[in-house]
């Protein structure tokens, strides 16, 4: 990671932003291994921040009918059904008479949007399917020889990452997006002019324009609650402490401990996402404990602050401009001769 980002060197975000004696950087640690998918975070977030509802659509993505983060969704709980085991958890599928998994099929449907409707096939007087006795008198075979063998159901609550190097902040021409004293990134709705530059700048696709007013909206980490020493609404509502709020240093320590605990419990895939200060965005203020690759949850595997190359680009541009200027000058100088 280079040290010459537009937004400044990595270090104390709030200090860099001009706060004289900032409080510790605050953030979220979302431990998806204890998420029960209750979506209380989604509801609490909308209630507190007065976010409008955004449509009734059955998505078929397991129990996720929210889809993704957006202008009107600042917390989003993903549900992922996988034919894979979770640590030493036993979901008994291997012992049951199962056929092929639905998850591939489900994924196709989700990808294709609402698939074509099946015609009305009438009359299904099939009776319960009786198994033929096995010829050798041994145990009866399951219906599908290539039956499912494992099943796990992952849930994860996604949110704005409040990056150490926030491209949205870099590109905002009005100063609507600003760094708070807590090191978080917040949009000031009364200043945003709706230019939308920040939308493609976000490497996670978090910040979004609201269709009917053009301004951009995203998680504020409940800045208004934080200034009153209250924890954010989603963390307050979370019943299982899947969403933990606190000083980022404490959270990182806790998270590392939790990962070790899960590794001991046989969940070898447990890993942190966004906790590394040396990643492409300098680490995030909201980071996650995941049980699979980030892509599974819809996260970019290797996010990079989109303004990373801007200084270099400007430098190159400046050099190019200087070269052009020199050439032009040289041309004039030559012409005088």
């Amino acid at each position: 990671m280079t040290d010459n980002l537009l937004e400044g060197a990595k270090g104390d975000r709030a200090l860099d932003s001009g706060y004289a004696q900032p409080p510790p950087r605050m953030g979220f640690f979302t431990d998806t291994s204890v998420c029960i998918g209750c979506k209380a975070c989604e509801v609490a977030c909308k209630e507190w921040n007065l976010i409008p509802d955004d449509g009734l659509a059955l998505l078929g993505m397991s129990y996720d009918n929210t889809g993704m983060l957006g202008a009107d969704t600042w917390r989003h709980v993903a549900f992922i059904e996988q034919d894979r085991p979770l640590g030493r958890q036993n979901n008994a599928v291997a012992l049951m008479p199962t056929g092929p998994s639905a998850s591939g099929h489900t994924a196709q449907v989700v990808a294709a949007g609402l698939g074509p409707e099946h015609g009305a096939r009438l009359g299904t007087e099939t009776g319960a399917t009786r198994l033929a006795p096995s010829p050798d008198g041994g145990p009866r075979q399951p219906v599908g020889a290539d039956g499912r063998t494992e099943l796990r159901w992952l849930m994860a609550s996604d949110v704005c990452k409040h990056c150490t190097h926030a491209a949205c902040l870099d590109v905002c021409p009005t100063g609507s997006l600003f760094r708070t004293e807590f090191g978080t990134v917040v949009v000031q709705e009364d200043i945003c002019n709706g230019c939308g530059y920040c939308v493609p700048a976000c490497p996670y696709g978090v910040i979004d324009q609201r269709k009917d007013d053009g301004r951009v909206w995203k998680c504020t980490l409940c800045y208004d609650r934080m200034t009153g020493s209250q924890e954010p609404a989603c963390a307050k509502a979370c019943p299982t402490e899947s969403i933990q709020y606190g000083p980022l240093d404490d959270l990182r320590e806790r998270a590392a401990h939790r990962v070790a605990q899960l590794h001991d419990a046989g969940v070898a895939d447990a890993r942190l996402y966004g906790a590394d200060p040396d990643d492409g965005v300098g680490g995030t203020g909201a980071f996650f404990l995941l049980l699979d690759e980030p892509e599974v949850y819809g996260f970019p595997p290797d996010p990079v602050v989109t303004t990373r190359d801007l200084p270099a680009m400007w430098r190159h541009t400046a050099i190019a401009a200087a070269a052009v200027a020199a050439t032009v000058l040289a041309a004039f100088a030559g012409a005088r001769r």
Partner: protein
Amino acid sequence: MAECHPVGFQWVMEAKARGATLIHIDPRLTRTGALADLHVPIRAGTDIALLGGLINHVLSNGLEFREYVVNYTNAATIVSEGFQDTEDLDGLFSGWRDDTSSYSTDSWQYEGVRVASAAGKREQGVKENAREAGERRSYQRHATERGHEHGSHGASLTDLHNLRRDESLAHPRCVFQLLKRHYRRYTPELVARICGIPEELFGQLARAVTENSTRDRTTAWAYAVGWTQHTVGVQYIRAASVLQLLLGNIGRPGGGILALRGHASIQGSTDIPTLYDLLPGYLPMPHPDSHGSLDEYVADDASETGYWGNMRSYAVSLLKAYWGDAATADNDFCFDYLPRITGDHSTYQTVQAQLDGTCKGYFLNGQNPAVGSANARAQRLGMANLDWLVVRDFSLIESATWWKDGPEIESGELRTEDIGTEVFFLPAATHTEKDGSFTNTQRMLQWHHKAVDPPGDARSDLWFWYHLGRRIRAKLAGSTAERDRPILDLNWSYSTSGPHGEPSAEEVLQEINGWRADGSCLSTYEELTDDGSTVCGCWIYCGAYAGGVNQTARRKPHTEQNWVAPEWGWAWPANRRLLYNRASADPQGRPWSERKAYVWWDAGKKKWTGHDVPDFQPTKPPDYRPPEGAKRQDALSGVDPFIMQADGKGWLYVPAGLSGGPLPTHYEPQESPVPNLLYGQRQNPAREVSRRRDVDPYHPSGDDRGSGVFPYVLTTYRLTEHHTAGGMSRWLPYLSELQPEAFCEVSPELAAQVGLSHLGWATIVTARSAIEARVLVTDRMVPVRVHDRIVHQIGLPYHWGRNGITTGDSANDLTHMSRDPDVHIQEVKALTCDIRPGRRPRGPDRRRLVEEYLGRAGITAATGTAHRTTEGHGRAE
């Protein structure tokens, strides 16, 4: 639990973080299963076979907690010679009567002693005790009001000293041996064949449960309506009780059987009941034929031993709370003013009475039967036959609008202009808009304060009922009619405040707590007297306002008190957090182990002490043995922890009080795709079936002709995002968008077999109706291998109806009204159905489709209604 009780589930997650093993038994992998260490898929409706398998595993491997079982349960008690088990009679117990379709329970009694139960049907014990005079009367009551007295009661044991026990547990007629015999065929192989749980998986479950049940460790079972909503619902819980008692998991920290209730304060609404057959504190409703006086009422129902021996004090204090100064010893404390129970007035009987035209008016308070009750079509047709209907709710629920836009209007079965029911809709306040208390499943009362005023015309329930009573009293004022005295003499004065005259909820709680003659607040039910000098609205809640302080409003953080947290809210009785906690110590009064120490006998101070309030007479030493003729609690010895039972023991075997038998037995649901592998008796013989089978027909089951028309098992349930029949969630955009459409869940196998596509439509058909739902094809549904076949199960959330932001067909249009005989609960967790791709027919074609199915399956009014399906070989009668 994670699905329906996500907030309570935080404690499960905390236990898991401390190393607890979490096991989830459910036909579907739910949000609970996602977090569990082990998920055990099961065929819906077969849990008694599973629990019986666990009981057999314990008994046949000698894994019971012997010292606990011998001392604290009725394992050693000898049962009368006349008792015959289901193993003898092909699925029936002795005493079956075809003429009443119920049991005569005499032969179930202990030898030498007659006993009534601490809950359930008390008349089975003491009533039948009065042999000459009582026999006929008792039988008549049983026949006409079968299953309507679930007053909880002190088991009455007369002649306790005649009780015969064999503490070696070897006597062939002792409860322990009866249990062994009853469950010996519930082998892992049988569990696999009935429940569809592979033997290996059952082995994992059995090991986990038994290895975690020792002096040092306890196992808890938590259930919700998945266990109760069956024609054998009560016996499900009994089966868990038997297992937990055998393993020593009752009355000890971390043990127990935890009922996760349907919604907030359901526990409170049984303590201070909205039930038709109970008075506050589980006092029974008096009977017209035998309860002419308070003396008769108390004599019938109070026990001679155990804490129910003080019933007269509880009853008199309640009558004083109702009728105040008007209630005196001279007029039997107005005992005559109490209504007498004349029959079964439970929900489903009431619906049938509406269809019959004998029930004319109906109050619905926060209830939406047009969506939430079994056979919702019958519910709507019943309401269409009323004179008047009052609906109090937050929003215009389906039960308030069926007359203009219900499914029967669409189908043409009903026409609005033909419906004579006058419907009143009255908006109600939510819990945030009023003061009051919630009682949770742990019997803990927690006070909530009003946060905002209710909008518009919305009013609290307290406001509605108080002012309705006040206006009725004003109309009757000056009346000299005898019949008006009970209303005019009522103690009906609460102070009111605000522009609408909101009554004080705190004053109601004070009255429930009760006061002494000098007006000071009582602090415990042990202060209650039977001379009229104490007033108490609910004896078990006495102490909730002790010292004139609202104890239920206490909010002391856990960091400032011990781990039992006695100063958070208030729990009945006497702020005990764990009932029967004497069992947490050994017979000598010492903790079973340091790790599980809870209450114990302090020999130096000569009293019981510990982390919680001991559930025992505080100074009764462990070596106390009652002298002959001792009464009430004094009749129980120092090793009898179950102080509400007349014998002080936990009942593995129930000699009286239940309709379905003294031991839980596996029966198939009312509607099942397979026969009963254990017995010729298929279903619970004592279950209730509807009288009005014109609107509530049943499917053929097992291998009967036509059963293949409805080959799939259907189970209904709730989602985290919605609340019961939707009145509190389908009108809220933030919740509706999270689960925006009615759907069913099917396995990929079933989808392939029937031709269902993910996100496509399915039509689900039963003999009651046909509904449509979107399809979710998911690995979380797995087929089960049962008997000689694969059974597919369909999951169907029941939240939806035609009103609100998110709408859809109601799952309960499909369900039927066959019921458990003890608590009259409907069986909506396991029934059969057919499923087919595509949307359901519109208009009158919907009924035509259902009728086509009825014809194809050959369903008549008699289908599925036989109570006894075995000859009962070897029957003594």
